[in-house]
């Protein structure tokens, strides 16, 4: 997280830590974690922890380990070509089903899914929260969770970002309506934050309540604007996938 500040897991109780590679995910209910497809595309059994603020070994030992039952990547996600840098992050979304339900509490709590109404359409300037243990201005990754508040901006803004050391042609990058561009100078998500929730307040409710509008997906560089997977476009897929893969209810 660039331009962020220390946070506690109680601020983002839906935040799931993915180890190897370091990434994030969002708990959306007792059995499912939402993350970016590129986080789990090469790892069908990711190592996950929930309910932790700091990534010290002792903290991980006391954290709640989440065990994978299956990983389901969105069918529209194109598999990585090792030879070329990835320039197409369309449909960067995946679901991880857990073997055991997460017991909710002050440190474990899901984030809501977006509604499908127009109220959930984001406009430039809408402010959302990001969180993660990824790269900061000073470190490749951090021990303690960090969070930041970033504004939504137009996709064109992200399209205009120039890489300092381009590994691909600017026109090769695919930007679609399945993505959200957000950030401002100095405030951004970065490597290691992938898959984490881009959270917005549910509109028109009294008590603050957050839903996952986006997932940290990619960016040409860190520190200005980043691209997030627009979760609203996948709600049907998410619900359908969860329903199809839910076994007999245990309660």
């Amino acid at each position, binding site marked *: 997280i660039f331009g962020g500040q220390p946070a506690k897991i*109680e601020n*983002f109780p839906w935040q799931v830590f993915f180890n190897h590679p370091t990434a994030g995910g969002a708990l959306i209910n007792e059995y499912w974690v939402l993350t970016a497809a590129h986080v789990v595309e090469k790892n069908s059994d990711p190592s996950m922890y929930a309910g932790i603020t700091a990534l010290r070994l002792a903290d991980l030992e006391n954290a709640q380990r989440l065990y994978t039952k299956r990983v389901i990547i969105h069918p529209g996600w194109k598999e990585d070509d090792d030879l070329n840098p990835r320039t197409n992050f369309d449909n960067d979304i995946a679901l991880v089903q857990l073997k055991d*339900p997460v*017991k*909710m509490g002050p440190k474990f709590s*899901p984030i809501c899914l977006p509604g499908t109404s127009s109220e959930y359409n984001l406009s430039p300037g809408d402010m959302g929260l990001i969180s993660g243990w990824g790269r900061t201005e000073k470190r490749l990754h951090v021990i303690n969770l960090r*969070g930041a508040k970033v504004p939504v901006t137009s996709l064109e803004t992200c399209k205009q970002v120039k890489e300092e050391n381009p590994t691909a042609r600017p026109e090769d990058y695919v930007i679609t309506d399945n993505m959200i561009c957000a950030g401002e100078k100095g405030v951004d998500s970065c490597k290691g934050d992938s898959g984490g929730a881009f959270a917005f307040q549910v509109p028109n409710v009294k008590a603050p309540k957050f839903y996952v509008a986006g997932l940290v997906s990619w960016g040409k560089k860190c520190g200005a604007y980043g691209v997030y997977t627009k979760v609203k476009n996948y709600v049907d897929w998410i619900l359908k996938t969860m329903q199809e893969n839910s076994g007999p209810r245990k309660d």
Partner: protein
Amino acid sequence: EPTMHGEILSPNYPQAYPNDVVKSWDIEVPEGFGIHLYFTHVDIEPSESCAYDSVQIISGGIEEGRLCGQRTSKSPNSPIIEEFQFPYNKLQVVFTSDFSIEEQFTGFAAYYTAIDVNECTDFTDVPCSHFCNNFIGGYFCSCPPEYFLHDDMRNCGVNCSGDVFTALIGEISSPNYPNPYPENSRCEYQIQLQEGFQVVVTMQREDFDVEPADSEGNCPDSLTFAAKNQQFGPYCGDGFPGPLTIRTQSNTLGIVFQTDLMGQKKGWKLRYHGDPISCPKESTANSNWEPDKAKYVFKDVVKITCVDGFEVVEGHVSSTSYYSTCQSDGQWSNSGLKCQPVYCGIPDPIANGKVEEPENSVFGTVIHYTCEEPYYYMEHEEGGEYRCAANGRWVNDQLGIELPRCIPVCGVPTEPFQVQQK
């Protein structure tokens, strides 16, 4: 050995009897005879009330006579000086002398013979209930026509026992009714109806006239009913003193009519009929009877159906109804069965929620499931209340028997993320 006659002489008779003598003779003649004792000679020292020397005649422990002095026959044609007749067959004669320096006395001479006794007339107590026949040495009793002599050979009665009435309706009366009933009789009747019927006796007050009770309330003649463990009577008097309808609660009834020797009256007449044994219409709780009747009788079968939420449990099997039959003893079969509230058991637990332990889990009990707030909420807002239903299940108005679900509350962090302005 009993003898028909004999002689008794004082000691040394006809010589003078000695001083200080006590001698007794036990006279016995055959049974059925009396004793005629007579003295032909008496010469015993005279004294006031024969206090010194005497001859005593004792019968049955009672002194019947005491003689002393010199006696002579009052009749020139008879040697008998003194005589006694006793209607008993035993007699004791005792001679007593004391010391005396006076002139000498010769004592006494007496004879006895067995004499016939007329048992029919000689005694205060009449030996026969009806006809008494004397003969030499005894007597016998005899009875009028229709009577028979009882085993005691003294009393006559009529042969009135043994009748058994099995018809469902009938009439019974005392012998000779309405003419005077026989004396000294014991008439035993039996009413034996088939099982399931009770004997009901009806009596008209005017159909009863039996020798009334004495001053102490005892009936010399009486009519008594006996059924199972209960007795009705004894009854006597002019007009039936008991209830005019007697429900015996039994299919058998014994009737005893006892009379004594005296005071024969008109007697009695009764009617009886068999009434099907009825079983009480019990108000068993929480159930309905079918058919619903005002009165149930022997062999009636009712279906007892528990009202909603109640069941009858037999062993490990429960059902909503059972059958009961009115039995011959007036009791219902299966009377031990009762409709009791349906038991729903311990409510199932749910994940991420709880339910309070109900005091009892019977029909109508209400329980509430709750979710572990603030991290879970109930999927259906009104889905927490369950009621123990008639089918023995915990039922929710919306979900039926399905358990409520506690859903994680989403999007609410425990602590809000505060962005520090720089």
